């Protein structure tokens, strides 16, 4: 199994993720991309989210999730990519994907990867709004509204 994991300040490409998931024998490929949404909030309409990560544990956790996807869903290839730094509204902040033998497993694996990423990878977000008031943190995955 091949997993590509990435924490980067650079833009994420769905096309590049699709390419990273190419493999013979995978009849189902699912790519999920989460984008920053312009939700209204106490700081005014969100214009961007600033992401920070504890890099080494985050990468280790990405790899652990990829191994679980392989074991549980038979994923042949996976991608787990996340932006860090300022990500403007409308921009992709996260991509996960899985290539499996069949579609049901691919959907299940991708769903698992995004849910587990949000709950268990040391990445945090802080909204930036149009108002000049203090930024509002999104303290928990339950409060997250940016990725689907």
């Amino acid at each position, binding site marked *: 199994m091949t997993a590509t994991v990435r924490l980067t300040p650079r833009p994420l490409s769905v096309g590049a993720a699709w390419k990273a998931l190419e493999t013979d024998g995978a009849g189902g490929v699912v790519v999920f991309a*989460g984008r920053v949404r312009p939700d209204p909030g106490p700081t005014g309409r969100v214009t961007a989210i600033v*992401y*920070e*990560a*504890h890099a*080494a*544990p985050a990468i*280790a956790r990405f790899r652990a999730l990829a191994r679980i996807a392989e074991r549980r869903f038979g994923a042949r290839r996976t991608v787990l990519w*996340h932006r860090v730094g300022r990500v403007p509204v409308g921009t992709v*902040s*996260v991509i996960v994907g899985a290539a499996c033998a069949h579609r049901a497993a691919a959907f299940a694996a991708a769903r698992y990867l*995004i849910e587990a*990423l*949000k*709950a*268990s*990878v*040391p*990445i*945090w*977000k*802080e909204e930036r709004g149009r108002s000049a008031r203090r930024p509002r*943190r*999104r*303290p*928990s*995955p339950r*409060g*997250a509204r*940016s*990725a*689907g």
Partner: protein
Amino acid sequence: MPKPIRILLFSSARTVVGRAELAWTVPSEGTPAATIARDLARTYPALARTLSASRLVRNGRYLRSPTERVRPGDELAIHPPYGGG
């Protein structure tokens, strides 16, 4: 003189303390992580609530137990609830 530990603060923990990193002195035989968390909450009362919801990471690995000892030169990270995606 033992080397201090580095305490890394992320997200809400950094906000309430006002710094991303602290140097913290522990004895040469080390101190249980839970004791360090308790002392941090005494020094920074506003951090207590965040600490109670945080995971502790020693040298890049999640603590197996709050009694795990943190020794001079170690790095201890405070992870408030995650919010990626």
